[in-house]
């Protein structure tokens, strides 16, 4: 039995309504390591069913700082190619502990359904009642039906149901890093959402050594340039976007991290009430969590004020629409006001070209608060490939040169009991990054 894994893959055939459980083969782990590389192999294996593959990195959900990454891989409606979208916040954690290492969703259901994945069980549940619901309602309804507020959902909103190429896979209520329209790919399978909850336990190969290595690494990381900074405003400043902080500050409430991610790259903004007040807000839905810098930054650059921009992002979150893609579309069309941007929300259009390459551009295209000694697209793709294989938050991966390939090979050995030859890692990374 492999460590840091549940040793189980679910293959859900929506056309037949069947769920097959397969062991996670050692051969797959040895040759592909984990995360996007395994998802890529499973995608190829089940390609006839146009699969979407959910999974997590080899070290996701552990004490390795930044190990928050889950992913959804599939053919992008925007690019027509295999793409990997990051699932951060707590979604990657929940995938890791769901009792399955990977979940292959293939075929198309005859009726609207949602998937309920919990503790090694994948159930297909009817979703007619929530099919047209917005993202927030759908998440709340499923949590209510299943009886737990901590259930993590990957949702196709109304935009995805309508087939928009900007239909994003949403996490609970918020934007994920999906810029590939994979929400629409999910909806095209007649799947409204995937609900995940795992209360399992992940064994470690050498627990003491792994934890000691993670603690030691955190000690090094804490001397990094990100220390003492948090939220999208600091992130933007770190990337040279000096005006952003002043633009967003009047709305900014608190900053939230993804699972075990030292840098809190998400900022909650209040559209109602005083964002500086530190108490439970009276309004049930006072604002929106900004999880992707590109959307507010692009809307700012169009000339929108922060409140208008964040209100649009909130509406995109409910609709399951990729707000960053929408802003890009607006910029390409010369739109300069909120009404114009809103007018594009239901158009069903997308920017002429989708993201280049298989990794989401939600992670900045350069390092932040850190000097890696190198840069450029090739470096970025390799860094992303590394993050998507081992399970690192892609934004934090650009702040943490201390988490290098040698360190990850060492952690894989002590944590997962997986010996990775440098040549294998090379093959895996170049197989993903090109």
């Amino acid at each position, binding site marked *: 039995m492999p460590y840091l894994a549940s040793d189980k893959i679910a293959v859900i055939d929506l056309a037949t309504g069947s769920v097959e459980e397969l062991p996670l083969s050692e051969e797959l782990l040895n040759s592909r390591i984990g995360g996007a590389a395994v998802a890529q192999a499973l995608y190829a294996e089940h390609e006839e069913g146009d699969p979407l593959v959910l999974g997590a990195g080899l070290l996701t959900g552990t004490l390795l700082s930044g190990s928050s990454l889950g992913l959804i891989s599939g053919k992008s409606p925007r690019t027509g190619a295999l793409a990997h979208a990051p699932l951060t916040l707590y979604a990657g954690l929940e995938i890791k502990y769901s009792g399955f290492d990977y979940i292959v969703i293939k075929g198309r259901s005859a009726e609207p359904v949602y998937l309920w994945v919990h503790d090694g069980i994948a159930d297909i549940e009817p979703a007619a009642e929530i099919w047209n619901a917005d993202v927030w309602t759908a998440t709340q309804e499923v949590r209510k039906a299943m009886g737990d*507020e901590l259930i993590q959902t990957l949702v196709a909103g109304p935009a995805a149901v309508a087939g928009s190429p900007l239909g994003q896979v949403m996490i609970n209520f918020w934007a994920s890093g999906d810029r590939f329209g994979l929400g629409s790919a999910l909806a095209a399978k007649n799947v409204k959402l995937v609900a995940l909850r795992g*209360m399992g336990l992940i064994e470690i190969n050498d627990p003491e050594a792994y934890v000691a290595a993670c603690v030691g690494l955190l000690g090094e990381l804490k001397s990094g340039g990100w220390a003492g900074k948090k939220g999208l405003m600091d992130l933007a400043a770190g990337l040279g976007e000096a005006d952003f902080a002043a633009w967003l500050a009047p709305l900014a409430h*608190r900053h939230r991290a993804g699972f*075990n991610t030292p840098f809190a790259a998400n900022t909650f903004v209040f559209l109602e009430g005083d964002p500086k007040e530190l108490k439970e807000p009276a309004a049930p839905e*006072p604002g929106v969590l900004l999880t992707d810098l590109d959307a507010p930054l692009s809307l700012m650059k169009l000339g929108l004020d922060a409140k208008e921009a964040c209100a649009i992002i909130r509406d995109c979150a409910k609709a399951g629409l990729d707000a960053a893609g929408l802003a890009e579309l607006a910029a390409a069309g010369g739109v300069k006001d909120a009404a114009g941007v809103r007018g594009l929300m239901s158009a069903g259009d997308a920017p002429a070209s989708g993201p280049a390459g298989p990794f989401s551009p939600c992670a900045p295209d350069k390092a932040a608060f850190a000097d890696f000694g190198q840069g450029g697209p090739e470096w970025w793709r390799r860094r992303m490939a590394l993050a998507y294989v081992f399970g690192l938050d892609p934004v934090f991966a650009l702040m943490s040169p201390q988490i290098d390939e040698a360190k990850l090979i060492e952690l894989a050995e002590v944590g997962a009991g997986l010996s990775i030859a440098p040549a294998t890692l090379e093959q895996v990374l170049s197989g993903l990054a090109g």
Partner: protein
Amino acid sequence: MGIKIDPGKCTACMACELACGYHRDDAFALLSACIIAYRARELKDYFGVVLKEEDTLVIARPEGLEVKRIGAVEEDQGEADASAKPMLLREPCDLCADREGGPLCQTVCPVDAIYQG
């Protein structure tokens, strides 16, 4: 001396919760942790940390720190329960007594929101 939490610094990353689960189970799991990132009221961005000690719950809310007695008989809620057995689901914080470096939750908190005092 006990664990204290600065709710203003906390970013709800759950590193503390996983560390505590590890301390209990020698594996990665969350269900036996005595320090828990409270994250249910997501739409309100209302989050914090709850720590179970021997007799008290330390609750770090955005408003500040609150300490509550566990199992105290309130109003007319119940009679004395001398034979009450501890539920072993979440054992109270032992400050990682067997660990040289002190409480692991404190060690792994990336933003130093956890301290002893």
